[in-house]
């Protein structure tokens, strides 16, 4: 059974709605550093952490590439596969910039994912607490933050 789990509660309802509307198989909501705030569809922590790290790295490298060609950033990235598509995009919220990685199958389309992603971003912006800026994660407490996130996401 696919599950939706969150580290920060305000992301839960927008994520559940996005998954229901877009029929996405896997979704990760994370910071640009790869810290996971919410996820849907992952059953193993190692898969989730890999996906988050790779997604954050892709966004960082494409952002650097964008700057080289004079763009502030690329809006979204789409990879089409034989059985799955990947949509990777950033958005600004009162809690800072977030990255959303969405993996979807043939039961939906990139067009539908794009349409509902716009609504998802609006819902995240509306739900994000404005009076509580996110703490920066320092190298010294990275491991404990990661363990806390995994414990929240996989109820360990």
């Amino acid at each position: 059974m696919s599950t939706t789990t969150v580290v920060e509660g305000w992301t839960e309802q927008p994520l559940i709605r996005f998954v229901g509307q877009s029929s996405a198989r896997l979704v990760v909501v994370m910071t640009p550093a790869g810290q996971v705030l919410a996820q849907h569809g992952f059953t193993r922590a190692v898969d989730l952490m890999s996906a988050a790290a790779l997604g954050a790295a892709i966004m960082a490298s494409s952002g650097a590439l964008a700057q080289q060609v004079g763009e502030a950033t690329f809006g979204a990235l789409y990879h089409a596969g034989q059985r799955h598509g990947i949509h990777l995009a950033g958005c600004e919220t009162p809690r800072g910039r977030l990255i959303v990685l969405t993996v979807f199958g043939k039961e939906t389309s990139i067009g539908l994912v794009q349409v509902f992603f716009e609504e998802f971003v609006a819902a995240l912006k509306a739900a994000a607490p404005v009076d509580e800026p996110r703490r920066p994660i320092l190298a010294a407490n990275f491991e404990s933050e990661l363990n806390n996130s995994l414990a929240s996401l996989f109820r360990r």
Partner: protein
Amino acid sequence: MSDRLLRILDRISRVRGVRGSMYVAAEDGLAVAQLLMEDVNARALAAFAASLTRKVSGAAAATGSGRVRFVQMQAEQGVLLVAAGMHDLLVAVVADAGINVGLARLEMMRAVEQGQ
């Protein structure tokens, strides 16, 4: 290519009541070419037209009805029409509820053939 498709869509837009027409990539649900009034959400129209056609095609396959060529979704305030060709290209039209569907269908089927 795009200019040619827009010229074809222009014929559809001349049918009274048409508020917008577009070529849509069936598999992706993305717009290929479009002629729309300002209040029509192109991205949503393309995505939902492709999704609707895919679901109707599933129903047609399940009932042994063969390939879907035309979909008409009548709503209170308007109508969504989709014509499907042999290949991965759809023609979608959003129009007023009172549109002459027969005439629109004729132009849309022509557009599908010419768009291949």
